[in-house]
């Protein structure tokens, strides 16, 4: 900034000084030229006036001559009179004007007028031929003399004017010589000042250009490094995304396994509950069965008693039948039918006694078997009690397994959260790498701009352009990185798409179920 300000200040000061000097020179030159032109103009005006007077006088003379010549051919008195008046007027004006030019012009004019009068005299007498002779022989030589005198006068005027112009030119030349020397000194001074001025600007600018070139080169190298680092980061992000994908797949499998474990543990717990309930029911039924067995046993005893009673009844009935047979036999024939009934009753009594004995045996066997069943049911009750105890242990173990599955699910959820965060970080890293690559590309462009600016600055300073060229291969790196990042970002998006599936139908839901339990 101090250099820029200094350059601006110097530029303004130099420009103002140059403009001021140039303006002063221009004003001086203009005034000088105007003064010289004014002098030349005065001379020119004076000469022009003199020449114009001479030419006017010459014109009058020629007009008078023409009028006189016309009069030679005119015979009409009216026309002659008019022509003579015109001639007199023109001649008088010519005499006055020429007489005012120089006294030396008077004698030839007087002689010319005398000649003209002689011609007019002949014209007036109608002797046009004599007038023509006088005109040719006398007037024309006098006219030539007058013209000669007038030309001499004009030549004297021109000579005088030329002398004055020569003097003016000499004066102007001397002034212009002085002005040229002054202008030369000013130009040399300005050139020296400009040379020193450009040195005072170009040297710091050259140093600044060198520093800028160095900075551009360093920036170029830094850009290369950043590009390579971006590439490394991008590759790392890609690898990380692949690992995350694999991790996600493994987590999905683990989640499935945990879900199955949770389901199995749930079913096992339910079965354990059912088993324990069945065992409890079995034990209760076993007690009921034992009681029933005891009741059967008691009933069997009661039945034995009944059977005994029936046997006794059958025995009594048999005796009675025998007594009836005896009585029937006594009754003879009349008791014959009765004897048959008594026989049948006796058979029935015997069959009842036989059935009672067999029933008693069977009841005995049943009681024996009931006792054996009671013993077995007692053993079964014991086994059932043991089964219940084991079922409770199994229930507790399944509960512990379910809790562990829940904890596993929670842990897996945390792992998935961590994976999600890692995926986000990976995506952020990939995006950052891409942005970094893009920024590197921009940086390369800026480096090129900086190089171009440095080269332009060097060109302005007349220094050979530096052979610093931006690494073109680096410029292509961002595209490569972007190409590499694109699939990785796709995998990352796929990973993000997988993650909700894990949470939706994966381990988290069963874990939720476990936690609800």
């Amino acid at each position: 900034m101090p250099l820029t300000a200094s350059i601006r200040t110097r530029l303004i000061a130099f420009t103002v000084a140059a403009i001021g000097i140039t303006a002063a020179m221009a004003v001086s030159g203009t005034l000088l030229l105007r003064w010289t032109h004014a002098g030349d103009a005065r001379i020119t005006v004076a000469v022009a006036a003199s020449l114009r007077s001479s030419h006017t006088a010459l014109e009058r003379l020629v007009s008078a001559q023409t009028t006189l010549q016309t009069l030679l051919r005119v015979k009409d008195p009216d026309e002659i009179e008019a022509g003579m008046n015109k001639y007199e007027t023109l001649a008088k004006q010519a005499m006055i004007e020429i007489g005012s030019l120089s006294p030396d012009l008077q004698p030839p004019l007087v002689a010319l007028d005398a000649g003209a009068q002689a011609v007019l005299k002949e014209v007036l007498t109608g002797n046009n031929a004599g007038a023509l002779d006088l005109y040719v022989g006398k007037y024309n030589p006098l006219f030539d003399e007058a013209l000669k005198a007038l030309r001499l006068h004009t030549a004297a005027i021109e000579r005088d004017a030329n002398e004055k112009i020569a003097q003016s030119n000499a004066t102007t030349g001397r002034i212009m010589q002085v002005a040229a020397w002054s202008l030369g000194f000013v130009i040399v001074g300005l050139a020296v000042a400009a040379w020193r001025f450009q040195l005072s600007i170009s040297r710091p600018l050259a140093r600044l250009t060198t520093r800028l070139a160095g900075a551009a080169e360093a920036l170029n190298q830094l850009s290369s490094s950043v590009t390579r680092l971006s590439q490394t980061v991008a590759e790392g992000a890609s690898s990380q995304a692949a690992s995350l994908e694999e991790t996600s797949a493994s987590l999905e499998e683990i989640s499935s396994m945990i879900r199955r474990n949770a389901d199995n543990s749930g079913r096992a717990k339910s079965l354990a509950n059912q088993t324990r309930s069945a065992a409890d029911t079995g034990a209760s039924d076993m007690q009921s069965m034992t009681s029933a067995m005891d009741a059967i046993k008691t009933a069997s005893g009661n039945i034995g008693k009944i059977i005994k009673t029936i046997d006794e009844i059958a025995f009594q009935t048999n005796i009675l039948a025998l007594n009836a047979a005896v009585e029937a036999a006594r009754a003879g024939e009349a008791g014959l039918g009765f004897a048959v009934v008594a026989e049948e009753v006796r058979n029935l009594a015997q069959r009842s006694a036989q059935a009672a004995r067999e029933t008693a045996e069977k009841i005995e066997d049943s009681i024996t078997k009931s006792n054996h069943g009671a013993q077995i049911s007692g053993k079964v009750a014991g086994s059932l009690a043991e089964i219940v105890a084991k079922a409770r242990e199994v229930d507790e173990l399944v509960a512990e397994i379910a809790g562990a599955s829940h904890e596993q699910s929670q842990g897996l959820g945390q792992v998935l959260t961590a994976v999600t965060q890692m995926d986000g970080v990976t995506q952020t890293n990939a995006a950052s790498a891409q942005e970094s690559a893009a920024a590197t590309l921009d940086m390369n462009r800026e480096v090129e701009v900086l190089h171009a600016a440095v080269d332009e600055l060097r060109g302005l300073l007349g220094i050979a352009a530096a052979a610093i060229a931006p690494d073109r291969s680096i410029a292509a790196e961002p595209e490569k990185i972007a190409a590499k990042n694109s699939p990785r970002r796709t995998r990352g998006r796929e990973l993000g798409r997988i993650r909700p599936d894990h949470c939706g139908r994966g381990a988290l839901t069963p874990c939720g179920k476990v936690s609800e339990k």
Partner: protein
Amino acid sequence: MKIRLILLSALLLGRSLAAENLSSDVQAKIDERIKAVTAWAAEPVVVEAVRAHNAALPAEQAGLTQDKWRGLSVLDPLVRSLVKNHVGQFLKSKKDEIITEAFVSDAAGLKVGFISKPSGWSHAGKPKHDVPMTGQNWQGPVEVDESSGQQQVQVAVPVLDAGKPIGSLVVGLSITRLSQ
């Protein structure tokens, strides 16, 4: 200057010689002009003026000789009166670029009126007057007007009064103009 005079004289001489051979075309135009001039001479203003001049010479013209006439200026009142009288004005009214001069003389050859001052006061004894006085037209040779340098020819016709010549009318015609 002498050389110029010699050259001019040679030119005039050459033109004079050349004028002897007028072309038929120019001569025809001269003849037409003669007819016109004859008509002018028959105009009453001309005839009456000549008749009056023959009858009585104006007092201011009495004693006027040839030498006195030559000494008179064209601006002299006597000369101007002969230009401004009826005959002079009539002739002036007829003047065109072909007519270089015109004057009317009485029977004695003295001037009755004219356009411009003639060189002589009396043309008596000259063919341009004597021939018309015989009742004949006259055509002179081609001459060169030294003042203008133009070729011209003079023609003269009689001024008749009841068929009798009482004067003459001389008109100068420019051959240069007639030839154009």
